């Protein structure tokens, strides 16, 4: 059951102010994640403690890196139910968990950060992992277009 929007709004804003576009409807998800080229990050936001204490701060740190995905999106699990389910259908091989992060390149999931890879870890460690993934999969040209 979704939480009251007034409680969730700051959690949404913590991500959107990083330049990450929030997808709140199925149509928005399809428009963003449908067939296309390039690198796409999808951050599955959550109300849970490891999103607040680890995942969102880690995302903020990682996105300070010069190399990053060309397109940055977020859906909110447990809140925007249809949009989150639709987003997960684009990485259906991976079991749903939240928070989580999917990195898609040319329509293929090349890296997935599950909740179990976030729990109990600090933001710096998670961000370091994300930065390594960005360096591996996201071209400098992609970063330039994102700036």
């Amino acid at each position, binding site marked *: 059951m979704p939480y009251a929007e007034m409680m969730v709004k700051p959690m949404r804003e913590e991500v959107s102010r990083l330049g990450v576009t929030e997808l709140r409807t199925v149509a928005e998800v399809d428009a963003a994640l449908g067939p296309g080229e390039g690198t796409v990050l999808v951050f599955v936001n959550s109300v849970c403690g490891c999103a607040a204490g680890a995942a969102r701060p880690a995302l903020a740190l990682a996105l300070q890196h010069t190399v990053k995905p060309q397109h940055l999106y977020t859906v909110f699990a447990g809140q925007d139910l249809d949009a989150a389910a639709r987003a997960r259908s684009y990485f259906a091989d991976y*079991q749903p*968990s939240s928070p989580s992060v999917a990195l898609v390149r040319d329509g293929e999931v090349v890296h997935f950060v599950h909740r*179990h890879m976030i729990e*109990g870890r*600090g933001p710096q460690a998670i961000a370091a992992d994300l930065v390594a993934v960005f360096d591996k999969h996201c071209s400098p040209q992609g970063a330039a277009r994102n700036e």
Partner: protein
Amino acid sequence: MSGQVFHPGHEELHGVTVVVEGASGYTWVGRYHERTDRGVVLHDVAVHDPATASHPRQAWIARLLKFGVRVDAKHLVIPTPETLRITRLTEFDAGS
């Protein structure tokens, strides 16, 4: 203590995905909630029954690590006598 406790007052493993190895040979992977008089309470649990599983435990764990925890039971209590060892999923050595 190395990890963050998500909710003050809970055990260190609260909210963390763990592997529970059972005396019966069963293995459970789920989010640790608490230990009570009845046993260990897990949420969103994947169950490995060595008698019926299509993969040996090591391969099953490896798949969970890559693709995530496929939930077989929303909530489970593993009785204390059954609980041999509890390990964080990310620290679990499937060969041990």
